[in-house]
C-alpha cells in the first residue's frame, strides 16, 4: 500500500473518524460534568456510538485496501 493513492484515502478516512469520535467524546464529557450520577449511562451510550462511527470509518478503510495496487 505504500506510495499509492489508497494510502492517502485511508489517511483521510482517519481524519473523519477522529473528528467524529472526538466530538462525541467532548459532548459526553460535558454531560458527565453536568451530572456525575449519570456517568454509567453516558459511558455506555458513548461506547456504543463510538463503535458505530468507527464502523463507518472501517468500511472505507476496507475499500482503500481493495484499491491497493491501482492508482498512482
Amino acid at each position, binding site marked *: 500500500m505504500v506510495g499509492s493513492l489508497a494510502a492517502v484515502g485511508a489517511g483521510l478516512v482517519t481524519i473523519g473518524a477522529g473528528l467524529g469520535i472526538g466530538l462525541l467524546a467532548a459532548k459526553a464529557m460535558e454531560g458527565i460534568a453536568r451530572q456525575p450520577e449519570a456517568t454509567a449511562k453516558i459511558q455506555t451510550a458513548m461506547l456504543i456510538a463510538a463503535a458505530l462511527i*468507527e*464502523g463507518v470509518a472501517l468500511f472505507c*478503510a476496507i475499500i482503500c485496501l481493495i484499491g491497493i495496487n491501482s492508482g498512482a
Partner: protein
Amino acid sequence: MASGATEGLSRAEQVQEFVMHHVQDAPNWHIGPIEIPLPEFLTVHLLMAIIGTSFLTWLFGSYYRKRISTEKAPSGFHNALETLVLFVRDEISIAYLGEKDGKRLAPLMLSFFFLILTFNLMGIIPVFSTVTSNLSATAALAVLTFVVMTFGTVLKNGPKAFFSAFMPHGIPFPINILIFFLEFLGVFIKAGVLALRLFANLLAGHIALFSVLGLLLTYGAVAFPVIFLGLFVYMLEILVAFLQAYIFTMLSALFIGQVFHPEH
C-alpha cells in the same frame, strides 16, 4: 520469518506479504515454523469455526448438565457465563423485542453473541486465526438476521402487514412510493452493513497489529520499542472483540424489533 519465495521482493512488498499472509484464509495451517496441510474441504478459517463451535457446545453443554443436576448456586466461571447470558437475554433481547418475542428469539441472540465473541477471542490467541475476519463468515451471520427480519415478519404478521409497514400513513401518494422503495432497500442495506461492520473491525485490528510488527521486520532490532505499540493495539483488539459482539447482537435485535413491531 522470510521464506524463500519472498527474497526477490522489495522491503515494502515483503512487509505487505507478511501482513496479508497472516490475516487471510489459507489452505495450510501455519503454526510457527510448521505448516500443516489441511485436507481438501478445509481451510484455516473453516477449521477455526469448527473448533470454536465445538468448544462452545461442549462448554455450555457441560454447564447446563451441571446446572440441572445440582441445587447450589453457580460459582466461578459458571457464574460469569450465567451473568452474560442473563445480560444478553434481558438487556438486548427483551429490551428491543418486547416480553414475548424477546423470550422466543433469545436463543438466536444468545447464539449470535457467544459465537461472535468466541470467534473474535480465538483470533487473539497466537495459534488460532479469526473466523470473523472473513467476509463470508460475517455475511452468513447477517443472512440469519435478514431471514428473521423478512420471513419471520411474514410468518408473524402476514405478508400484507409486512409490506404495509414500509408505507407510513399520513403521507401523500407519490412520496409514499419513494419511501416504500427506500425502506425496502433499507432492509437489505441494514443486514449488509451488519456483516461489513463486524468484518471490517476485526480485519482492521489484525492488519494494524501486523503492520506495527512489520516495522520490526523493516528496521530490525533497533525498532524494539514498537512492541509496546503492538501491545497497545492488542489490548484494543480485546476491547473491540467484546464490543463488536455486543454491537452485532444489539443491532440485530433492534432491526428485528423495528420490523416485528412497526410503530411509525
